[in-house]
């Protein structure tokens, strides 16, 4: 009986999360065997949630939500700093061994960094694809080209996505995607190979503050060109 009374007194403090370890263990043992205790705990938890809502209202700074939006966007678009590789042991090693160790650490570091970047890019890509405010524009084949491509962009996001498939090119050629701004200037965003199966490419927007009115894709020499040198094989206007 005393135990029960003691536990009853402790139950609200358990809900508050301010019990010592032995007290918490006592309550958890009681909760495990008593449905009544579990119900009482639920009531306390609801009451303490409500208690928080009794505090005097203060307006959060208006910028808080927009700052948070920026913070989220930054997480989605910024590649994390490369992970530091392990420190070399300070020992007198033969230079061949030291070089091998350095090489190994370098390779490990690069692999870890590549993995982090790849994971981050995948997250960024997913964030754009899942954004219900993303603009999706089907690119129209030109000059007898074949394939299907969709250009996907979220306003003010520094990345955008191209998805679809298009024919392979001779090894000395690649496709190049151009974003056309209001002044008719074409800015290169992506140089890529054709793929026979559906693929998604993440690319950086050349200037996130620029207003782009159209997208076009040309075939250029491998490595890309500074300006388009052939007629577009895909193109379309972007909505206002």
């Amino acid at each position, binding site marked *: 009986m005393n135990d029960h009374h003691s536990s009853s*007194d402790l139950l*609200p*403090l358990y809900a*508050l*999360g*301010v*019990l*010592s370890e032995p007290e918490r263990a006592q309550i958890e043992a009681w909760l495990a065997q008593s449905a009544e205790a579990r119900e009482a705990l639920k*009531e*306390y*938890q*609801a*009451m*303490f*949630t*409500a*208690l*928080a*809502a*009794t*505090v*005097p*209202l*203060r*307006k*959060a*700074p208006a910028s*808080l*939500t927009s*700052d*948070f*939006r920026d*913070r*989220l*966007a930054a997480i*989605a678009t910024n590649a994390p700093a490369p992970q530091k590789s392990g420190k070399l042991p300070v020992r007198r090693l033969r230079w061949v061994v030291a070089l091998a160790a350095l090489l190994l650490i370098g390779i490990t570091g690069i692999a870890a960094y590549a993995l982090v970047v790849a994971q981050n890019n995948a*997250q960024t890509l*997913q*964030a754009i694809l*899942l*954004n*219900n*405010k993303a603009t999706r524009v089907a690119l129209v084949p030109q000059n007898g080209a074949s394939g299907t491509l969709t250009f996907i962009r979220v306003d003010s996001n520094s990345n955008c996505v191209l998805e679809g498939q298009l024919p392979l090119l001779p090894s000395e050629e690649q496709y190049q995607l151009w974003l056309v701004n209001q002044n008719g200037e074409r800015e290169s965003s992506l140089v890529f190979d054709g793929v026979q199966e559906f693929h998604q490419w993440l690319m950086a927007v050349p200037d996130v503050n620029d207003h782009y009115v159209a997208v076009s894709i040309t075939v250029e020499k491998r490595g890309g060109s500074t300006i388009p040198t052939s007629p577009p094989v895909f193109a379309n206007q972007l909505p206002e």
Partner: protein
Amino acid sequence: MDDLSLIGRIKRKDQEAMVTLHARYADLLYSIAYRMLNETSSAEEVVQDVFMKAWQNAAQFDDQRGPVIAWLIGITRNLAIDHLRQRGRQIETTGDRSLEDSEEITGFNLPDDWQDRERVNSLRFAVNDLPAEQRQVIELSYFGGMSQSEIADYLALPLGTVKTRMRLGLQKLRDAWLKE
């Protein structure tokens, strides 16, 4: 869109849904954090960290354990308590200060599906009616994350006195809460 739908979208990493949730509850969580920390920049920091945690841990949210707002409030309390611990706990309790100034607050943007909206008001009045010494220990526990022993040390009171005040105060709040 209700909170559960928003959380569903947040679990799929929909940033706009997360921003909507932020806009909906930033004031409430900021008010709680400010009440606990009594300082604007720390309260702002806590609010942003709460939503970032919610973004990162949305998959762990379980609606069987309570509404979204309860989950957010829980995170807010924990993070604010961490702040208090880091800076060596300087808690402001209402003490003799009247809570009347909070009576004019007609309510936060509480979710429509929260069944306890009316009970929040009853609870507010019950808190206001508590004797100052009972309110003080409850506030130190709730807003300061202190155990009864810590409160006894903090107030230089016997532990038994703290326990009695706490028990009596919580019993009154519980009665008011269950009466509705």
